[in-house]
């Protein structure tokens, strides 16, 4: 039990890991799928690359949101300064606070990737309508943003 009571930093770092890793996994899946689909279009028409690039990058932002939450936790527990001294309850709170972006970012990146893949065929067939494909993909991204905001608000208020 005594040992458990000293595990604050452990849980907080676990939170950092989840917040960073899961959205990054999601983003790489999303970006990867879209890029594969885009490559097939670029073979025939290299000129569409810049339009496709926007779609390819869209599912990539979840990774960034995750990183921001990770960094915010690091800043808050003071681990970047070298010594972190937080209680187990606080550590667990950070872990829980990381969950919205961990899961919201992870899954939304994958689904956004699916939308972007369909968007690639819009760009291939009707390049003038590509902004509609992009907008459809941002509809999904909003939920990653909501997860980000809730994680962010939780993280900065835990030690207050």
């Amino acid at each position: 039990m005594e040992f458990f009571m000293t595990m604050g930093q452990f849980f907080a770092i676990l939170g950092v890991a989840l917040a960073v890793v899961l959205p990054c996994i999601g983003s790489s899946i999303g970006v990867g799928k879209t890029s594969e689909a885009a490559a097939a279009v670029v073979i025939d028409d290299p000129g569409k690359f810049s339009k496709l690039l926007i779609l390819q990058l869209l599912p990539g932002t979840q990774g960034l949101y995750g990183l921001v939450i990770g960094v915010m936790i690091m800043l808050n527990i003071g681990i970047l300064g070298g010594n972190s001294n937080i209680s187990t309850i606080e550590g667990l709170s950070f872990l829980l606070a990381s969950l919205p972006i961990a899961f919201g970012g992870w899954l939304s990146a994958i689904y956004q990737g699916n939308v972007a893949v369909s968007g690639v065929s819009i760009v291939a067939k009707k390049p003038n309508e590509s902004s509609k494909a992009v907008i459809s993909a941002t509809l999904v991204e909003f939920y990653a943003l909501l997860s980000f905001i809730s994680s962010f608000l939780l993280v900065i208020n835990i030690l207050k």
Partner: protein
Amino acid sequence: MAILEMKRIDIVALLKDGKKIIELLQRRGVLEISKQEEKDGFTFIDTSPAIGQFEKQKQVADKALSIVMSLCNLKPPLSLYSRKELSVDEFKQRADKVDETLKWAYEIILLEKQVDTLQNEYNQLCVKKDLLSVWKGLDVPFLYKGTKTTKAFIGSLPEFYTEESLRYAINLGDENLDLFDIKIISQSKEQTCVFILCHNSLADTLYARLRNLGFSIPEHTFSEKPEDRIKDYEDQMQKILDEKNKAWEKLLSYGEIVDDLRFLSDYLSMKIEKYNALNNLAITKNTLMISGYITVDKVGPLVGELIKKFTVAIDVNNVSDEEDAPVALKNNLFAAPVEDITESYSLPGKGDVDPTPVMSFFYYLFFGMMLSDAGYGLLMVIACSIVLKFFRPEESLKRNIQKFLFCGLSTVFWGVMYGSWFGNIVNVVSKNFFEYEVGISPLWFDPVSKPLDLIIVSLILGFIHIVVGLGVKFYALWKNGDKLGALFDIGLWYVVFLGIILLLVGKLVLSIDALQSAGLIIALLGALGLVLTQGRSSPTIFGKILGGLGSLYSITGYFSDVLSYCRLMALGLVTGIIGNVINTIGSIAGGGVTGGITLALVFLFGHAINFSINALGAYVHCNRLQYVEFFSKFYDGGGRPFKPLKINTKFYKFKEEK
């Protein structure tokens, strides 16, 4: 402002002037020609065979151009640059040369094919020569069978042998050692080429042994010695090479006519455009009829010019409501750059107001808020100004760059508000290199330390955006005569909103009970009004009540729309925090020279990535806020873009003679 009024114009002219009139119209680029209706007495010109031919020629020209460009290592002209200007005389001079240029284009393609074939032949000979080169040391032809008393075996074995090891492998016994002679022609790990001469008496046994070792006889059937053959190949290769070089040089010499080829390509696309327009004309024996749409500001000049130069009868009419007239937008310098954003959603349809002017302000505002770094903004402003000043881009590219110039200015504004200059680079540099931390403090507040304030600001801005969107709808309804609709559909919602605002302000900011109850009453009155009026289109009483109650449900829509603007806060935060993270990583090596170099490298690389990802994010989310939250309040779209007959060229444009 906003949507330009269209006029319908009908021109009747003499047939003999036809070509000149069309050319003039193409130069002016102000008239969209529409197809004539079929009427008795009119015939139509079918130009599709001619167009087909021009298109083929244009393909030839473009292909020749790309061959010459890649051959001579010419860079395509930077698309940022404006097209080269040609005066009418220069145009005529060049136009006289197009037949010749076309011939050259065909020749370039031919030459390229020739070079290709020659290269292929060369490669084939190369392979043949390589195959034969293992037999270079053989000084008899392959067909050599031996003398009267001896038999010769020429062939290869699939392993590495020396003379001794081969003798051992053949194993004919010591007594026969003198009866055959082995000469290794060449050897490698995979095969050994041998020439074996043996006495006739031993021939069959030897052959059988050799077969067991995998001996195979080459398929060459020519009668000269391999060495001579190889020389022969080399001669041929040299000849092909010479020929290829000659063709190549000739091709290279065509690098000089690259300008002519570009002109040819432009010339043909102009022709294709023109002939497409001809398809739409109706002609009689001596006259022709052109009809089309023209924006109202261009009617005067065009009509004047046509009457001055030709014998024509012109009729200008207002566009009737049933007609499918195209839509052209005209906005001031501030709003025009975002016309493309409107256009890529949809142009305004009938009864729509052009949303561009209202949108432009919010567009720049929101973009800046999401990118929100003064350093990035400055970079955008500088880059866009340089391009605009020195490259003089045209039309849509120019508008795009102007758009990002304004977005950049707004980004600087928000960056200053938030105190973010490439993240916190000033703090990091001053702390690491001068041991005294200074920073640029935010003009308003630091979003990282006060994120709640930022959320509230974002939501308020979003609310204003939506209210303005509804206001535009109000204006459109009012202007189109549906004044009751404007008051009921929009006005009552305004009442509800006003009530909610008073309620919130009274409760959260001022804590005045009277204000709260006043707000509540106003909101409820507004809601009651909505219930009473929103079902008015339904024929039955029941339907009216249901429709009225149902309309209240859209309050949830407004609520979620407003929430959607918290992306303004999130994206702004992400830029700032990632920027700080980059600076922190860069300062890991501390001060001094190493620290300086590390920081410089990390700074350049990190901020380049942060800038591009966040600029992209700001761009797409800004579009989304306009399309999904703003346009949905008042905008239907569905207009057809105005596509006048004009000169759609890639490399040249034409100076107008006055």
